């Protein structure tokens, strides 16, 4: 991503930027128009929950695995959540194999912060025996095809996988021993945060940038929005900056599209 700037021929770069100056986008969208969003759940049968999300040609898959283990020593009364993401080369020639780099790590941490801060999960309801047995929830996110705005796709896929997850129900005996039942139950969902990214290109703001728009953008700003319209996480990225006014306009754009994205998430989860 570091060298994205240099990957696009200058004439193409100028063409995209001057279209956007006129309020047009290369794929025909309006500045505040999100691409078509598709969400499917249950796509990976060995996961406890899974989802595949498309934003136009961008596709992400996320899977949840939950297991019982000890809590972190400093949080004896809470389950744990770990988010991991890896930009694998399957999805694009710009991704290289190897251990997680700063892009993988930023992506996972932004998704993690959004889910944790909303919060998506009631971690305190994931305790079976305090200080001893808690649910440990892992979410792994992978791109399938990359055409820009992978943060939003990842956030949606992670949330959809959480909504889709079903884990065995455990009974706790008075002496603290666990017994697993056949029944599977949903995870304790507290909120359904959605991720919305706005790109700044010249003086314009566009929602849900595609890959070529990312190549020419000055900066991006991601909002994670909770059901009540609050912002539970933000992340600015890229080599440019935003004026305070642009931040407020970007937030308004994000708040406009968030309810529809959330509705799609909830519909996909119900449909399963």
């Amino acid at each position, binding site marked *: 991503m570091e060298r994205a700037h240099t990957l696009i021929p200058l004439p193409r770069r100028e063409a995209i930027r001057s279209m956007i100056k006129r309020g047009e986008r290369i794929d025909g969208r309006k500045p505040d128009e999100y691409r078509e969003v*598709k969400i*499917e759940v249950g*796509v*990976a*049968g*060995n*996961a*406890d929950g*899974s989802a*595949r999300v*498309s934003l136009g*040609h961008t*596709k992400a*898959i996320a*899977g*949840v*695995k939950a*297991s019982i283990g000890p809590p972190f020593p400093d949080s004896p009364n809470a389950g744990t959540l770990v988010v*991991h993401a*890896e930009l*694998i*080369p*399957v*999805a*694009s*020639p710009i991704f290289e*194999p190897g*251990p997680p780099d700063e892009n993988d790590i930023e992506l996972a941490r932004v998704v993690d912060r959004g889910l944790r801060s909303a919060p998506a999960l009631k971690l305190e309801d994931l305790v079976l025996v305090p200080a001893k047995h808690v649910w440990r929830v*892992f979410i*792994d996110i*992978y791109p*399938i*095809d*990359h*055409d820009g705005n992978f943060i939003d796709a990842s956030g949606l896929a992670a949330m959809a996988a959480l909504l889709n997850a079903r884990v065995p129900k455990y009974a706790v005996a008075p002496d603290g021993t666990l017994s697993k039942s056949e029944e599977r139950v949903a995870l304790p969902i507290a909120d359904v945060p959605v991720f919305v990214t706005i790109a700044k290109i010249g003086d314009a703001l566009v929602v849900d940038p595609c890959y070529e728009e990312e190549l020419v953008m000055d900066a991006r700003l991601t909002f994670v929005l909770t059901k009540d319209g609050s912002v539970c996480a933000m992340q600015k990225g890229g080599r440019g900056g935003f004026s305070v006014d642009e931040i407020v306009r970007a937030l308004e754009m994000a708040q406009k599209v968030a309810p529809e994205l959330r509705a799609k998430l909830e519909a996909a989860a119900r449909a399963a």
Partner: protein
Amino acid sequence: MTGKGSVKLLTEDGRRLDGRALNEMRRLRIEAGVLKNADGSAYVEWGRNKILVAVYGPRETHPRHEALPDRMLLRCRYSMLPFSVKEERKSPTPTRREVEISKVIREALEPAIFLEDYPRTSVDVYIEVIEADGSTRVASITAAAVALADAGIPMMDLVAGVSIGKIEGKLALDINGLEDQYGEGDMPIAMMPRLGEVTLLQADGRFTREEIVQALSMAREAIQRIYEEQRRALKDRYSGVGLEYGSAGEG
């Protein structure tokens, strides 16, 4: 190792736990050209296995010192997504098993490729197992060959594979995860379907010479059918029937 033999894998009427006969394959469906960014791609659903393959190349080799003066460099990476396994989450760091499988898959594909046609270039094959249920390495080879053809890599034949297992003393075609875990043996076999050349052969568990001969014969017959499905996927792709991965459910 543990539990080998501790689960009964055949019912009293000689059927396997999923209802198949010993020489019956699981349902197989391949799609070619399912990815937008890759030069070639394929998606396979084989029983409960779901595997996605992307191919890039032939392209300039990076890092450059790995380029080969007289032929194309083929690189393969087989990896299981952390949530693809039945057991607890797999660490995303490549395991020794994944490293070995990546190597044998590469060596199973190389015999089919005209490597000398593009010296100094490289072709990368990325294999992601989304859901695993036994015999993933042969399913990966089967899909990778389709993805290579989809990328237009010059090949003398496709490569297709199947695993022969041994359960309760009998050979069984196309073993699944349970049969792999509790069975007595596993023999993954890949061949060039038209040329009949075996390009992958591994085994663990005990087999007599006669059983090996029989296993190779069972595999050869099955590989002809797998080959038909590979060809159908490529034909559909070229006639524009191909679908993006995920554009329609898993059927």
